[in-house]
């Protein structure tokens, strides 16, 4: 079987996803184009050899709509022979794009594919794509739809987590992210975003606050308590989990992933194309899976996805040297660590989305790179990256350095 290798990856810094964010003036097509250009240029790619551009994008409407992958490839001056496809696996889209690229390569359908993702949350707000899940009364009713923040609090309640647990995790994420930046751990892969006259508008993640303390977070009110009580979401959650007396609300802006803009690109190819182009493979994809799980709690899938990926790879939790799990909410990572007995020292060692933000469609392509860079820095062999996804799904990918 043909192996799928990771050759390179780049990401933008993440800009605050608000009108005063540094990347707000940059169109999503530009964000995507700039990472495509960066990965092309630093590898000296003849883009005619690229057989597909697969980009995750979770709110694919407006200027992110209608297959932004193909449009960004054209806009990035890729050869017109390079097709593109936009995919949506919710928050795992960026990783799923890499997995689809790897699948094409491993299946022998393609030799060189770019995966990644883009999301300008400041320009195209979450939810702008509508969808039947929350709005169609029949569907919401059948699936016991609750807002994701309620799910995060439900997950925390189910695992007996406290507000202090969640805040402490967030403080540590900020500390780790700040340290990683200070030590230049992201330098290899972060490419500045430039404006239309070529000047850099953002070179570092914009939302990291290394001085965050338990005290600074203590003042934040739980963000979903009111929705839970007034809109009735707590009741729906309890109907699914009747063993719980109530939903304890503990997530807020400070211990949840940040709303940001950004894009990522990952170069995936066969061994043969690497040899042909003179590129050295950095890691191979050992397993890549996506699972479905109970949609109301929604966010507890990474453990099941991880177990499945490990089984497919013939590995155990102890065989994984380093983990990256998207910090959608503190409870997601804390529940995962508890369920799989993963020590905090081996997971999200450079912080995560609580500190740096979560540009929905792009994140998976970013954190698989963060994982690989850190495996190289620490000279570790194996790593696993996972993200929880809306509607009760999760993806996990195991990579191994070569």
């Amino acid at each position, binding site marked *: 079987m043909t192996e799928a290798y990771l050759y390179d990856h780049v990401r933008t810094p993440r800009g605050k996803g608000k009108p005063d964010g540094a990347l707000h003036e940059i169109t999503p097509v530009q964000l995507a184009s700039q990472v495509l250009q960066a990965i092309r240029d630093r590898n000296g790619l003849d883009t005619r050899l690229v057989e597909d551009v697969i980009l995750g994008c979770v709110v694919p409407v407006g200027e992110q709509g209608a297959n932004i992958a193909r449009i960004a490839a054209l806009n990035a001056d890729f050869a017109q022979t390079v097709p593109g496809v936009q995919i949506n696996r919710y928050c795992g889209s960026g990783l799923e794009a890499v997995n689809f690229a790897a699948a094409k390569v491993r299946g022998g359908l393609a030799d060189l594919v770019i995966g990644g993702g883009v999301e300008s949350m400041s320009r195209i707000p979450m939810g702008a794509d509508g969808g039947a899940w929350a709005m169609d*009364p*029949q569907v919401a009713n059948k699936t016991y*739809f609750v807002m994701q923040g309620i799910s995060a609090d439900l997950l925390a309640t189910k695992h007996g987590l406290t507000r202090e647990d969640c805040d402490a995790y967030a403080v540590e994420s900020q500390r780790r992210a700040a340290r990683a930046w200070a030590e230049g751990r992201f330098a290899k892969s972060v490419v500045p975003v430039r404006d239309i006259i070529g000047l850099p508008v953002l070179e570092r993640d914009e939302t990291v606050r290394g001085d965050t303390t338990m005290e600074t977070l203590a003042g934040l009110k739980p963000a979903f308590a009111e929705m839970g009580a007034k*809109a009735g979401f707590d*009741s729906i959650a309890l109907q699914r989990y*009747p*063993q719980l007396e109530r939903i304890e609300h503990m997530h807020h802006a400070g211990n949840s992933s940040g709303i940001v803009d950004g894009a990522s690109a990952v170069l995936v190819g066969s061994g043969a194309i690497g040899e042909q182009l003179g590129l050295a493979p950095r890691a191979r994809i050992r397993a890549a899976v996506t699972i479905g799980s109970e949609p109301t709690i929604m966010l507890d899938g990474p453990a099941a996805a991880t177990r499945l990926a490990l089984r497919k790879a013939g590995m155990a939790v102890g065989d994984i040297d380093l983990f990256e799990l998207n910090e959608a909410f503190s409870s997601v990572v804390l529940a995962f660590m508890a369920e799989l007995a993963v020590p905090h020292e081996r997971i999200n060692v450079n912080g995560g989305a609580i500190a740096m933000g979560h540009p929905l469609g792009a994140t998976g392509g970013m954190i698989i790179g963060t994982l690989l860079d850190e495996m190289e820095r620490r000279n570790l062999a194996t790593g696993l990256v996972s993200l929880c996804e809306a509607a009760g799904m999760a993806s996990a990918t195991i990579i191994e350095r070569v």
Partner: protein
Amino acid sequence: MIDYFKYAVAEDGICTLTIDQPNSATNVMNQAFLDGFRAALDRALADDRVKGIILTSAKSSFVAGADLKAMEATLYGNPDAKTLYEQCWAFSSLLRRMETGGKPVVAALNGPALGGGFEIALACHHRIAADVRGMVVGLPEVGVGLLPGAGGTQRYLRMIGVAKALPLLLQGSQLKPDKALELGLLNEVVPADQLLPAARKWLLGSPDPVKPWDKKGFQVPGGGNPMLPNLAQLFMGTAANLQANTYHNLPAPLAIASCLYEGMQLPIDKALQVECKYFVKLNLDPVAGNMVRTIFINKSEADKLVRRPAGIDRKVHQRIGVLGAGLMGAGVAYVAAQNGIDVVLIDRDQASADKGKAYSESRLRKDMARGRITADKVEAILARIHPTADYAALGDVSLVVEAVFEDRGVKAEVFAKAEAVVPVDAVLASNTSALPITGLAETTGRPANVVGLHFFSPVERMPLVEVIRGRQTGDTALAHALDFVAQLKKTPILVNDSRGFFTSRFIGAFINEGVTMVKEGINPALIENAARMTGYPVGALTISDEIGLDLAYKGAQQQAQDLGADNRPGASVEVIATMVATHGRHGRKNGKGFYEYAADGGKRLWPGLDDLWPRRPASEQPDVREVQHRMLYAQLADAARCIADGVLTDPADGDIGGCFGVGFPIYLGGPFAAMDTIGIGAVVAECDRLAARYDAGRFAIPALLREMAAEGKTFYGRNRVVPPARRTEPVA
């Protein structure tokens, strides 16, 4: 064919169609109505003389709405989707034909137009209501588990937009004319004598017979795309609230939300078909039929005193006595005074009696502050309540209700004092919730006059009165007691005397099962959530705390004393005794019960429960379905025993009593409706399983139910069983 529609064309080309169902006080929309309507409409549309049409009624109301009895019949008629759709569509499409027929039609609403009646009006091109007393319009179908299936949801949507239409339809709002006018659901409100002239005037003013939604470029007010941010928010919130409030048990509100969500994205003709299909879907679900039967058919019959002994003149009570001015006595006095009855309100001293009257005063002042009642009326009501400590004031009352402490001795004492004064034929009613009436009657010299009138708290809000017939209760006293209930505009059910009558023992079965599970180490949160998910308003532990654990404890002690060697205490008594006697936990009243109550009104389950009755590990906790079944089937088995033993004389009393008195899930229609729907054989099998697994007594099934299962009988419908109490003469 019976001619429902009087057809008259005047010189000016105005055709007046007067709906006038023969031999009926109202116009009910049955098949003959539909046929008559179609014929009249076709004639008017084809009649070249006719320029415009006035649709009005010869009755005091416009049209009373659909024939709900036919709806209930679908529970037994093996309805098929295609036939039901054709029936529904025949009416909806007829209204659509009127709407698009090219001739302007004005609805001249001479009286209330609700449900199907208002749907007819909505399909007209103009709606004028007479400003008469009791005038009301609206689409209340959701209240009986249905939706307006003849364009109501779609025309509301297109006339006033989804944001306004949704709450009106989900709450089944009945609107006074000024409110309907403000909303734009009525075009004019005129004095009654101006109704037909106003209708004629509008028709002669060259009106446009084309609805806005039949014109190019029409947009639903407020937007027609549910993905627009404001509407998306509305639909998301609505879908969530429906689930939170109905626990996935009520299909009608969900169907209504879907009619709007889907209908707004469709042209009117397609949207009407989708609405019709959702209506059919509700008809195919037993929930609607069961709700219609209990809420509409059975309750209406109860309100008309269907159980009243025949041949006894109706008694109009002018003046009654209430003994005991505590919460219940004060409530009874209040409701009686509201309904024009003079009340002598007696307590042991004047101050206590005055306090009872003050209850009415505070309620009435509150209503007055909200503009719901005028000062004159408040004074008139209060003037009817005569607080006193003097039993001599009872000299001319036709009925007394005692509402004193639940103690046989105290009750006997106040009855004796009253008996010395009241007329010889006065009814002596006891508001006891559990003490056998027969025993109380024996303490008086007039046992034939003694009857139980079990009110529920708060009296002014609870619609039910459980009327208990003791062994010696006479027909006259019973009839006069029922007359009193009717005067209070409450719904009576008739129950033969037995410990806990029907409602108290029936809810007791639910509470007992819930509390017993605590003893077994079942997660208390699971017990409470399971109850709510089944459709009970609150869980067994919550209701226990609300009633008061100390009261339950005292009741159990009283029963033990009364029954002596025959006493078989409920499984939960041990739990209650431990809570009250050992731990001083009396319930909400002292802030300590199954829950702990915080000063801010919050409450949490008491963690000490786990110490007293060690909780089973998560892996050994039952599935929520099992917990639900235990509580529900404990009640079903008890209801079955009540009818088998003659405590109930008719399943309707049990269904009404369960739903309107003690919170049995209304979507099930009551315990007997539920058993019919589940299937008698299935109920027997499940009770047998539960009896074998948990307790032979609580889930014991009477022979009656087994016979019914064997013979294919049901409690309602064509194969209905004759209740044992009806098989012989009632106990004299």
